[in-house]
């Protein structure tokens, strides 16, 4: 089930350095939201606060609130491990478990959730690989290592692994930046299909991609190097790309930046 994310007053630090400052936004369930902005403005950092991955980095610290429907992810007594099982993540570089077969990669999260029955696993693995548009390419070599796939296939394997556990939110950090145009299209199509089941947040440097896949777009910026990144505006993608309300957004999108 897709869930609404409600972020308020969120700041994130790397030790003493404040990487993002006081961000508030609402992400509707079952929508695709794109994060755009110049390098270093804190998009990845912000994304990683949404599944409590930020605090894994040494010195990583977060202030503020992230509500998933009516549960505060940063509430006291909330286990980050549980949060990450509800909020899945796909990384910039495909990172299948290199020592595991394709099958085991997809089943890894399920096994963490205590699903051990072979028939049940088989079903979910097949469904997830189909969901990631990878099934036809790998169905004859499920027991081969996942690291033997092409980059684009590996990335779809990672998506299959992430959706196998049926998260409520799927976070993607530049999922196509290491891929060729065809694999990129495959993944963009996939995002379109997945958004009925998950709330999706995607970081991208590719304006066309943001325009193609997202319903809403958030623009981040930083005033100077060493300053924290800020949310400049978030609006319907169409509006951001045609008639944004802030000048900086328009400058960035039209390439008149910096």
């Amino acid at each position, binding site marked *: 089930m897709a869930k609404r994310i409600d972020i308020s007053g969120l700041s994130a630090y790397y030790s003493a350095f404040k990487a993002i400052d006081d961000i508030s936004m609402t992400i509707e369930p079952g929508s695709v939201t794109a994060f755009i902005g110049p390098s270093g403005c804190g998009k990845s950092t912000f994304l990683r606060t949404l599944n409590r991955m930020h605090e894994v980095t040494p010195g990583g610290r977060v202030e503020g609130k992230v509500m998933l429907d009516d549960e505060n992810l940063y509430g006291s007594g909330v286990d980050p491990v549980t949060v*990450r099982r509800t909020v899945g993540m796909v*990384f910039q570089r495909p990172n299948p*478990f290199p020592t*595991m077969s394709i099958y085991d990669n997809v089943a*890894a999260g399920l096994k963490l959730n205590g699903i051990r029955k072979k028939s049940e696993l088989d079903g979910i693995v097949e469904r997830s690989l189909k969901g990631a548009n990878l099934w036809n390419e790998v169905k004859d070599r499920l027991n081969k290592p996942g*690291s*033997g796939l092409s980059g684009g296939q590996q990335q779809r394997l990672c998506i299959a*692994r992430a959706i196998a556990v049926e998260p409520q939110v799927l976070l993607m950090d530049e999922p196509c930046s290491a891929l060729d145009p065809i694999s990129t299209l495959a993944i963009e199509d996939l995002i379109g299909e997945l958004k009925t089941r998950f709330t999706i947040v995607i970081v991208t440097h590719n304006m066309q991609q943001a325009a193609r896949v997202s319903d809403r777009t958030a623009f981040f910026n930083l005033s100077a190097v060493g300053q924290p990144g800020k949310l400049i505006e978030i609006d319907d993608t169409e509006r951001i790309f045609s008639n944004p309300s802030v000048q900086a957004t328009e400058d960035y999108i039209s390439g008149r930046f910096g």
Partner: protein
Amino acid sequence: MTTTAPPPTKPEPHRAAKTVSRPGDRIFAGLARGSGILLLVVMAAIALFLTVRAVSAISKDHGNFLTTFEWTPSLNPPVFGIAVLAYGTVVSSIIAMAIAVPIAIGIALFITHYAPRRLGGPIAYVIDLLAAVPSIVYGLWGALFLVPHLRGVNLWLNDYFGWTYIFHKEDPNSAARSLFTVGILLAIMILPIITNVSREVINQVPKMHEEAALALGATRWEVIRLSVLPFARSGIISASMLGLGRALGETMAVATVLSASPQLSGHILDPLGGTFSQNIVAKFGEADEFGRDALIASGLVLFLITLLVNGAARIIIQRRKEYSGANA
């Protein structure tokens, strides 16, 4: 002792189709080739020397070299064999590995994944220091501290686990100068090298693989199980082999602790037995020309065992290569 981790995988040799030959390259290539050849020649010479002496000794042995317990090349006719030595060497090394490997992996994981940064560094440093202690110091400590203090442990093991046969002790009151004590001492001696190499290998596990597991909702231990150990596995095997190599060849520590005798017992607490290197230091001084040749023959067997162990490790590592993550 330097403990640089072996790289998990070797990069493929890479050659450009046609390169300009520069003097620097040529000199270096010549030097590299020259030292390679020199090394091979020296090794071949040593091997030849050892083999000739060993074969000449074994051919005059009136006992069966492989199955004889006694080491008495000075008798007329000479009778000597490696049964007790091979058994003692292998058993004490197995005991050492069984104790040291799990503890070393545990410490390495603790330093890299559990201990706070401020604690991890100092612990790693102390363990580095342990590796620098000379083995005779371990030997003295073993003889003066470990042997008397293990007496109680031996009694306890004999009382409660004597039924396992392994921990049965023929004479419960005899001193703890047994293969078991040797194994414990060897475990302590090889712990640093296994820990340090494992730690470095574990540190090389790419962050992105750990994050893959974390993002799926893995607990700390599950991250280790899913990402860290599989990735570090071949490196940890190499680390253990380094340790095993040291345990197999360790001399002084064994010689000071073990009360050697040409007997063989399945009870590891019994104070008897011997190892290859211990036997060599014990007998070399008083041995005549022939006796030394006989000892050389036993050294050659130890060398073969070490070679065998390393080969086996290589096969284990190789078999998992497809899954090693080299191309990830």
